């Protein structure tokens, strides 16, 4: 598989795995308005994933479909961030995961608007509008919980502490990242770190939260070495395609 296909699949997998997690909230949200909002985000990131899978199919040139990538690859082939396969936990964990990701993707899509690959730039131009909204939504909730009640403050601080170890991976380049950066197709992910941290600092300050310090960062998701969560998630996701091979739905 060439680097470009790998990179596009990395972007697609992020959207799919996050949508799968967010979909678990549907019907179970803390209040109807937020249930609807979270499903909106799930639909947006799923939509982004579909554009990327479809484009990956074109670049890959193996005659595969979007569903082949989503439903017929194993856990070692998925390239999503470890962060996104983490369980939903409570509302604080779900929102914190979202905030860390939105904050990152807002920076990535802003750079991808200038990608030398026209199709990636086109997808980014649609996605950036969605992610701007997602980032506003998740930032506001981080602030609301941090500066809300004692309980909400404690819960959202716990969420930050728990998920922080999965944020390091966002800035660790893989071979396909480096290859894409050298061709001007994608940004150098290491260059996004400062701005990402600045925003975390800014939002956490407003939320009266402590930014977690000096912990060991996990990584591996981007190259297919995942947490135990992913295999279970995929078992569920891929169940019908695996049980009835070749059927159309």
């Amino acid at each position: 598989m060439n680097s470009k296909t790998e990179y596009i699949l990395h972007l697609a997998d992020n959207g799919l795995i996050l949508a799968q997690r967010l979909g678990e909230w549907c019907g179970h949200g803390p209040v109807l308005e937020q249930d609807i909002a979270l499903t909106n985000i799930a639909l947006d990131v799923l939509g982004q994933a579909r554009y990327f899978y479809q484009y990956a199919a074109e670049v890959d040139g193996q005659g595969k479909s979007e569903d082949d990538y989503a439903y017929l690859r194993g856990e070692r082939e998925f390239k999503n961030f470890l962060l996104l396969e983490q369980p939903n936990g409570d509302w604080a964990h779900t929102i914190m995961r979202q905030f860390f990701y939105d904050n990152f993707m807002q920076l990535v899509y802003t750079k991808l608007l200038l990608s030398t690959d026209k199709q990636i730039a086109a997808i980014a131009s649609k996605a950036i509008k969605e992610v701007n909204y997602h980032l506003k939504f998740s930032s506001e909730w981080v602030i609301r919980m941090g500066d809300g009640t004692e309980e909400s403050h404690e819960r959202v601080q716990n969420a930050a502490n728990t998920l922080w170890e999965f944020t390091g991976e966002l800035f660790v380049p893989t071979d396909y990242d480096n290859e894409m950066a050298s061709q001007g197709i994608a940004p150098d992910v290491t260059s996004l770190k400062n701005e990402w941290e600045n925003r975390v600092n800014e939002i956490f300050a407003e939320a009266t939260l402590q930014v977690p310090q000096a912990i060991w960062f996990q990584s591996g998701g981007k190259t297919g070495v995942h947490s135990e969560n992913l295999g279970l998630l995929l078992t569920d996701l891929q169940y019908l395609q695996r049980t009835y091979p070749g059927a159309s739905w």
Partner: protein
Amino acid sequence: MTILNLEEQFMNRIAADEKIEPKDWMPDKYRKTLIRQIAQHAHSEIVGMLPEANYISRAPSLRRKAALLAKIQDEAGHGLYLYCAAETLGAERDTLMDELHTGKAKYSSIFNYPTLTWADMGAIGWLVDGAAILNQVPLCKCSFGPYARAMVRVCKEESFHQRQGFEILLTLCNGTAEQKQMAQDSLNRWWWPSMMMFGPNDADSPNSEYSMKTKIKRFSNDELRQRFMDATKPQADILGLTIPDPDLKWNEVTGHWDYGEINWEEFNNVVQGNGPCNKLRVKARKEAWDNGKWVREAATAYAAKREQRKSETKQVA
């Protein structure tokens, strides 16, 4: 002006097909009947999210996953309009939620059946939303303005869901033998509960008379059930599926499909809480609400702090 005069005037407005608006005078019974019905309808929308949500994670293609998520989100939206419509009558959403959780308020009994295969996503769209449309289209002309207007939008979306459900089944029926069997099995399980969605026979429907009189309701349960029967049979034929009713036959004289006896004992049991999923559904709703308590409290507390800071800033200025 005496109460009697007000009642008379109200009934005259109903007779003239005028819409009653939230701030208009209305009889207490009319208000209570509407709150009960609208809340029941709203609860049905949000409990109705659960059986379908059961298949979001397992939707068999990305297109189906997106469509299913969007469909369930529509139902949440319907629930929201309806709770708002009930609020215009002076009901509080928290109280309505409590009534759902304690079992005081009912919701459509169909959602107390389990979704066991992907075909159920098709059958729910085709049959359950199909039956809901027949119930709801007349509500677009309901005498209470906010309810009628909410129903216009709801019906448009339901009609889309119904076609989407039919298309899921059509794909299965044109697929492998196993898929077609999955579709037939789903119709077998959902058919009778769908027929029950129109409620008891007219003779046994306790709340119908007043609702008909005040034009909240415009067609009887049995009339609507017959419409559903007549509309659905040719659709089942297109799918190549058999409706599981040995007594089903075309009646030359009436020009309608005659159907077999409905198992009202089952219906009454499901309504009373003994369906396969009653406890599960209410538990899921209650857990969502209880687990969300701290989130709602945080939002309220933060909003209050913000207000306070704003007024402090103003005072300083």
